């Protein structure tokens, strides 16, 4: 691999002082520019912590995080984030919600006033891409959960982030909506090719969307295995019913079970 876009090297993260909980230990991973990786693992293994370290929200206790050739020491404005909870602002219309990052991130923040029409057109294009054309003037509470999550995805993308961090973005949705949104995400990624780090507990989702699936151990989390996914894109949902696809999912499932068993025997 050439110089990776994201490099996490021997990172440890401990909360609440020296005696606090160790969330991550000796975590290392590389992500190439434009790559789509998924991180899976048992619950509470520090997946979300990893996300906050990469975006510079929290400093790591140990080790280094390098993004785009520079060590991360504070919030990165080249990152977009979306969470399980859409967290849209109820007093703003969908369009205004999507445009929120533009009011904060430089250099857009300075340009927004002069070039509002151009930025607005861009936000509308994005909403159209995720199937929300015609809903720009609606308020979040007038939309279903799946539609809100689409809008949340647009908000994460509107400032053209080179790094997209997704923390279980489809975790709270029903199966059908979730599968719809997988395809939406795939389409967005194919159109813009940001580097994506997707944290999820849904193995099918990880295999369907990612180039590479990384498996984390139970707390304190570290990467214990990885599995490349060979399928070309665009992938179709039929794929998820094929034997080979399911074999990959199964393999991942077994490795996570092993990780949990190892942890249980450690504890004894």
């Amino acid at each position, binding site marked *: 691999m050439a110089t990776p876009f994201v490099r996490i090297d021997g990172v440890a993260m401990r909360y609440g002082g020296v005696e606090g909980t160790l969330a991550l230990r000796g975590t290392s991973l590389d992500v190439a520019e434009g790559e789509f990786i998924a991180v899976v693992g048992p619950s509470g293994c520090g997946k979300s912590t990893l996300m*906050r370290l990469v*975006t*510079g*929200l929290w400093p790591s206790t140990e080790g280094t995080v390098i993004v785009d050739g520079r060590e991360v020491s504070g*919030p*990165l*404005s080249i*990152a977009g*984030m979306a*969470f399980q*909870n859409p*967290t849209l*602002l*109820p*007093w703003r219309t969908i369009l205004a919600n999507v445009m*929120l*990052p533009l*009011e*904060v*991130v*430089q250099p857009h923040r300075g340009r927004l006033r002069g070039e509002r029409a151009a930025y607005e057109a861009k936000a509308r294009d994005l909403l159209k891409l995720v199937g929300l054309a015609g809903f720009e003037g609606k*308020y979040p*509470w*007038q*939309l*279903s959960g799946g*539609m809100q999550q689409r809008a949340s995805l647009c*908000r*994460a993308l509107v*400032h053209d982030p080179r790094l997209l*961090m997704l923390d279980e973005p489809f975790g709270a949705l029903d199966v059908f909506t979730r599968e719809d949104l997988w395809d939406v995400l795939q389409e967005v990624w194919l159109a813009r090719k940001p580097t994506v780090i997707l944290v999820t507990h849904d193995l099918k989702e990880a295999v369907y969307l990612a180039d590479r699936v990384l498996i984390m151990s139970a707390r304190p989390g570290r990467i214990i295995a990885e599995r490349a996914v060979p399928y070309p894109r665009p992938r179709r949902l039929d794929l998820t019913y094929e034997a080979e696809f399911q074999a990959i999912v199964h393999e991942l499932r077994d490795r996570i079970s092993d990780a949990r068993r190892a942890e249980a025997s450690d504890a004894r």
Partner: protein
Amino acid sequence: MPADRPRSAEALAEAARRRRRLEHALPWLVIAGMFLVWEVACRAFAIQPFILPAPSLIAESMVKWWQPLLSNAWATLLTTGIGFLMAIVFGLALGVAIGSSVLVYRGLYPLLIAFNSVPKVAVVPILVIWFGAGFWPAVLTAFLISFFPIVVNVATGIATVEPELRDVLRALGARPSDIIAKVGLPRAMPYFFASLKVAITVAFVGSIISETVAANEGIGHLMLVASSRFDVPLVFAGLIVTGVMGVLMYWVAVTIEERTTGWATRGQNDPRLATGG
């Protein structure tokens, strides 16, 4: 049956209209009913006017003394209004400070609680010593009594911003002031207006307390003078004028609230707005 549907839909709409009309008329009916019962009770039991004057007697007194009532009501409205505006400015500023900084919260909150527990009537004599009887003690008592609910509510609104939302903005490089301006303040607005409704009514309590202790004008002063002359109908007239002013100011607060934070009470007034699902 499909053939019946248009008619029943129309009937439903008619029923809804009737219900809305009733909702609008109801407060007036309740007030009129209360005065009617009061009047009938006074006459039926022959209650002495200096114990409880009948509404007709109070109305008579209002007509007779309309000039002093109006000028004193104006004085009270002025002191209450100024005290209330000060409470809004100070309450918002302090609420933002307390809501956005744990340090300020920890440092100031106990003092605020202690301060709010002091009965304001006990503070009036001190204010009179400082500023002399009259205008300023009334303004300041209204202010002191009404800023606390504003502070608490604004602070709550700002302190309870969802952590994920904070992360989204912080990851974009937002400054703390950005987060307060874009999320904290708009989010605190429903809390703020809820507090205004409480604050405006207690502001009247503050200014009238001060007027009854030391003042030479205002509704409180007028009621004090009237009671010393055993003009009980005029005392009641003062009470009613105060109530009317309170309702008016409350209504102003509600109107501003509805225009600015309709999103917070979504769908409660109009079920058609609540789509999705």
